[in-house]
């Protein structure tokens, strides 16, 4: 028994390089794998030797994935990852020890799996969260009778780092949208004492999820983050700045509707409400589903789904330069009110003027000399 345990332990200590070698993977194959990994992590090809070195010595981390107020779109997205496929992720890269949608065990056994993973890897496991956490009432979302808040706090305690996947976990997302009926909040609203990587998007691009996981596996650290906690390599540039339709924006050529001449020729979608100018994400370069296409290529304006509060941005088909409220109505009401006010003030002024004129007669040289 003890021997068995030791044997298991030593296998767990195996590095990624060991695993690859034991599977008979040649060095050349390993280099190719590293090149693909660098590309996936949006790193410069100059980093390939460094990645190779780091991966040689990387260990397969335990990953616990918690799903709260979510739609499972993030998990679905993960399964669409072409580079570092879900299979290779599950078998080679990480040990996905708890994941509602994918794990075989259910009920008590599932919860046991989570507890076992936490205990065995305390301080070392990676916690992935999708979905927001309702603070309005603990009964708004429970798993195994435990509120989302309690489960998050309990599981976060022993995590090395937390990856908040999807806009709900990173910013509260759709449950947080006005009027936020369940009091939904994001992970970093609740947890302040752990490194948190935000991977927003509704859902995030699959290779961005796997890229962040792989980065952690490779270097054991979190990537460089921007002011919203997003990895800069993927969220460093706006959709607009990297959009292949940008030259049309610069020339002032816009699609006016969804199948006019401009739409067919791939002109800029700004007038149809594109949020590309204020949205930071990697869609324009990585595209979706193994480079097949992406929303703007398919003719639909960017919704801005990787930005906080994008649901409350005043309408997906309203251009960024348009006010979000009904200004026409405001203007009409204001004008009506102001005419009345203006007349009143004008009348007051007029009576002032008249009384001044009336008072004028009585002005004497003495008055002026005062």
């Amino acid at each position, binding site marked *: 028994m003890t021997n068995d345990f030791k044997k298991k332990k030593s296998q767990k200590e195996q590095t990624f390089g060991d695993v690859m070698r034991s599977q008979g993977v040649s060095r050349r194959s390993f280099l190719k794998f590293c090149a693909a990994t660098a590309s996936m992590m949006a790193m410069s090809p100059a980093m390939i030797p460094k990645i190779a070195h780091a991966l040689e010595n990387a260990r397969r981390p335990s990953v616990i994935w918690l799903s709260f107020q979510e739609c499972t779109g993030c998990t679905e997205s993960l399964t669409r990852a072409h580079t570092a496929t879900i299979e290779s992720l599950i078998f080679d890269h990480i040990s996905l020890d708890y994941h509602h949608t994918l794990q075989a065990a259910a009920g008590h056994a599932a919860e046991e799996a989570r507890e076992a993973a936490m205990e065995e890897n305390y301080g070392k496991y990676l916690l992935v969260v999708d979905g927001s956490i309702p603070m309005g009432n603990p009964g708004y979302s429970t798993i195994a009778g435990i509120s989302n808040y309690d489960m998050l706090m309990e599981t976060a305690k022993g995590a090395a780092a937390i990856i908040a996947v999807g806009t709900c976990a990173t*910013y509260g997302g759709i449950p947080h949208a006005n009027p936020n009926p369940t009091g939904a909040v994001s992970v970093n609203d609740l947890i302040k004492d752990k490194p948190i990587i935000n991977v927003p998007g509704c859902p995030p691009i699959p290779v961005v999820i796997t890229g962040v996981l792989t980065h952690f596996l490779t270097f054991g650290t979190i990537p460089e983050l921007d*002011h*919203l906690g997003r990895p800069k390599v993927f969220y460093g540039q*706006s959709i*607009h*700045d990297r959009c292949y339709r940008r030259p049309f*924006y*610069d*020339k*002032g050529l*816009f699609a006016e509707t969804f199948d006019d001449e401009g739409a067919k020729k791939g002109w800029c979608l*700004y*007038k149809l409400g594109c949020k590309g*100018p*204020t949205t*930071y994400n990697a869609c324009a370069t990585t595209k979706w589903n193994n480079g097949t296409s992406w929303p703007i290529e398919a003719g639909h304006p960017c919704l*801005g789904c990787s*930005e*906080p*509060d*994008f649901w*409350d*941005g*005043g309408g997906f088909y*309203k*251009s*960024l*330069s*348009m*006010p*979000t*409220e009904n*200004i*026409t109505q*405001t*203007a009409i009401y*204001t*004008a009506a*009110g*102001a*005419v009345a*006010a*203006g*007349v009143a*003030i*004008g*009348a007051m*002024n*007029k009576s002032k*003027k008249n009384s001044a004129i009336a008072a004028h007669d009585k002005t004497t040289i003495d008055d002026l000399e005062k």
Partner: protein
Amino acid sequence: MSEIEFLNWVRGPGFQIAVIIFIAGIIIRFAEILMLGRKANLAEPKGSEMSGGLHTIVSRSFPDKSTFQRSTFTVVAGYLFHIGLFVTIFLFAPHILMFKDIFGFGWPSLPTPVVDAMAVVTIIALLAVLAHRMSDTVLKFITTKEDYLVWMLTILPLVTGYMAFHRIGMTAPTLLALHILSVELLLVVFPFTKLMHGFTFALSRWYNGAISGYRGVQS
């Protein structure tokens, strides 16, 4: 407040507040001006008030030769920034979309690079105007704090707009929000400062011309 929340605020409630103050201010100012009234002219009319008035509205938009010679700089720089403001505000595609949203109709835009260049010209003209104001002793003497404020609020939308377009210095949502906010500040002070001339210029010019027209003289 996140930057997108900030942007949503300036595009929503912020813009609404600004528009309310702007429209109410303008109307009240006009009401004040119009209701103060003019003394009835008892003299026999020797010409048309209307044609005289309309004439000056147009004619005074062009400087006469002597004014031009006397203060070439003021005229040129003044024209440049006024035309520049017109072009950047009214002929830039995203702006036209905003007007379309409010008025229900739009008009053709100029190519973006033209507007971009015009913005630079306008900023330079405004800077030159300020430099002139500060270097000319007389001008400097008669300049009030309001003048500086108005100058500041006029150039701010141009600078923030230029920065937002070229994404200089900050993230795109913040820059766009700052640009819109600067426009809102301008809208708020507009009716209560000399900026009001943007509306009253026609009225005052018409008034001058109408007097001359009534008297049957060329204004």
